[in-house]
């Protein structure tokens, strides 16, 4: 394996890790505030669908005489992408509020509500998709205006000459789409919000000891709702990434393909800390990239079958969670609805 090949692998890693990262940080906000969320998958799926649907309507040119199954859009320019992202975030936040309502206001079981969100999203996206587009749950291919294309960062070609670092900058860092950079920037932002602001302190506090926070005169429910909404926004970006920033260029049913659950595993692996979340997601992204690139690996003695390579991320999840990371202690009040008075 030469250097160029390694850099290609790292570039793929970054692209595959980004949706995981969004979902992982989304879960971080929610769970740090004491709301367990296994509905990350469903929220991403809903967002992927909403953004693809709106992106298709807004971005496709108007047609005078569409044949059955062909969509006549509004032909907007760059606002199409903006509208699509807002729609994706909107759909995801709506799902998040539903989860919040069930688990904060109604004090229901958070795991069950999360499962319900996943099923709701899986069914509703296809149902609405079939009704709107008649493409078996898919959306039409998104036009370029409602997609995030690769961006070449300044000086990428100039710096290529520098050994090691130059090609790394040109091939891995540069040439990704906007949402990859947004995802990477979200990590320090999350760290700053959680550990350097009053809001973050309170958010962590309601996840550890909501009683104490309440005694201090802070509204626990409002704090938790804020966390759940933030979770919705980040899941929404993750969903938009899948439909708008990848080669999928549209929605296909169940297109999240379990990424929400991998993100959840990464969150536990990272012990609910932002920087560790980044490394966990990059690790899972790397494994996925390796399994895609080297479908059967010949290691001299025997050939590792493709099935093993593709199962690797999941095997690793089990191994990691079975104790390799030491004890992962969730926020103390996680999963427990807050009851003010008995």
């Amino acid at each position, binding site marked *: 394996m030469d250097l160029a090949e390694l850099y290609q692998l790292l570039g793929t890693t970054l692209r595959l890790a980004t949706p995981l990262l969004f979902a992982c940080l989304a879960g971080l906000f929610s769970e740090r505030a004491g709301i367990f969320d296994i509905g990350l998958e469903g929220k991403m799926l809903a967002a992927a669908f909403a953004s693809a649907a709106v992106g298709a309507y807004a971005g496709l040119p108007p047609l005078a005489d569409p044949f059955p199954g062909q969509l006549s859009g509004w032909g907007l320019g760059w606002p199409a992408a903006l509208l699509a992202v807002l729609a994706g975030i909107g759909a995801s936040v709506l799902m998040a509020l539903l989860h919040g309502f069930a688990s904060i206001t109604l004090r229901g079981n958070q795991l069950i509500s999360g499962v319900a969100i996943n099923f709701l999203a899986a069914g509703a996206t*296809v149902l609405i998709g079939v009704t709107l587009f008649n493409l078996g749950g898919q959306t039409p291919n998104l036009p370029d205006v409602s997609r995030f294309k*690769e961006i070449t960062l300044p000086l990428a070609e100039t710096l290529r000459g520098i050994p090691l670092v130059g090609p790394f900058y040109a091939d891995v860092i540069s040439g990704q789409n906007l949402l990859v950079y947004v995802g990477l920037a979200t990590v320090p932002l999350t760290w700053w919000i959680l550990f350097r602001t009053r809001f973050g302190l309170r958010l962590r506090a309601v996840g550890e000891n909501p009683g104490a926070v309440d005694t201090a005169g802070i509204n626990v429910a409002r704090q938790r709702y804020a966390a759940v909404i933030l979770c919705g926004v980040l899941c929404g970006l993750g969903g938009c990434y899948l439909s708008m920033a990848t080669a*999928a260029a549209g929605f296909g049913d169940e297109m999240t393909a379990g990424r929400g659950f991998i993100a959840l595993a990464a969150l536990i692996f990272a012990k609910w800390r932002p920087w560790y979340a980044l490394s966990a997601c990059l690790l899972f992204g790397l494994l996925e990239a390796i399994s895609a*690139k080297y*479908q059967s690996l010949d290691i001299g003695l025997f050939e590792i079958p*493709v099935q093993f390579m593709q199962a690797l991320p999941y095997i690793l999840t089990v191994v990691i969670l079975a104790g390799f990371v030491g004890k992962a202690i969730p926020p103390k009040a996680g999963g427990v609805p807050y009851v003010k008075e008995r």
Partner: protein
Amino acid sequence: MNILKTLVGAAALLGSATLALADGHADFKPAVIFDLGGKFDRSFNQASFEGATRFSEEFDVEFREFEIQSDAQREQALRRFAEQGNNPIVVAGFAYGSAMETVAAEFPDTSFAIIDMVVDLPNVRSVVFNEHEGSFLVGMMAAMKSETGKVGFVGGMDIPLIRKFACGYVQGVKAANPDAEVFQNMTGTTGAAWNDPVKGGELAKGQMDQGADVVYHAAGGTGRGVLQAAADAGKLGIGVDSNQNYLHPGNVLTSMLKRVDVAVYNAFKDSMEGNFTAGFSVLGLAEDGVGYAVDENNETLISEDMMKAVEDAKAKIISGDIKVHNYMDDNSCPAS
């Protein structure tokens, strides 16, 4: 009183006439059931819908149709259609295999046809295609069009049927350019591999990073990611099943056509004329069951020489001068 009698008589006559008319049509009730993609999937299912529609327009016969929404509905839909007396019933998709085995045995007087799958029952026609022959032709085109001498293949689920596509393609590539290199990737080993365009795009990107400039997909919904990635990179993709040239005009070299519409049309027509035969039916180049697509979206991409070479190979395959190895014969591929 008399007037009343006449009226009643006329009404009865009219009634029986309509009944007879309805009966005349009711004798022949063809039906088609689509697979999960839905009838406007611009691929497999749409092709079967088009075949049924063509038949319906030509012979002025109504046909019944159903789009299933989940796997559980396969057997249900088949049985319901058979109970209602529809005959023949055509289903598209290998996933119908087990449902067909159960239901066709229960209704021995109904004719069934299944596409892409073999069900060995006396009232079932199993239609399969020589995908390796069509893939051979597009493989030749890919090799002749490629400037780097490297081409790619992205399959959906890793099953023998998809290996058959891959094997035919590789043989075609090597026939046109023996030194060419072919990168092959399968998306996965479960049904989810048909619907993961994100991964399909990544696989195509990986192959293009290695130098491939033409990428052929046989991956259903995953393929839209492959074609999109090729178009984004300014390279060429090759579509599959139905004509996908229009998806990215100028960036889809051609499409390997699988004439599912012909299979549906033939099943309906044979049944209407009383010629329905059960058993194994193979549609290859000779029967126009597979082929490649040339239309206004890709005609500038295909040179005279390519056209000539491919047409020449096509004639030789039909006459038997070129033998394209079928992966499913012995589950191995001589070329790689």
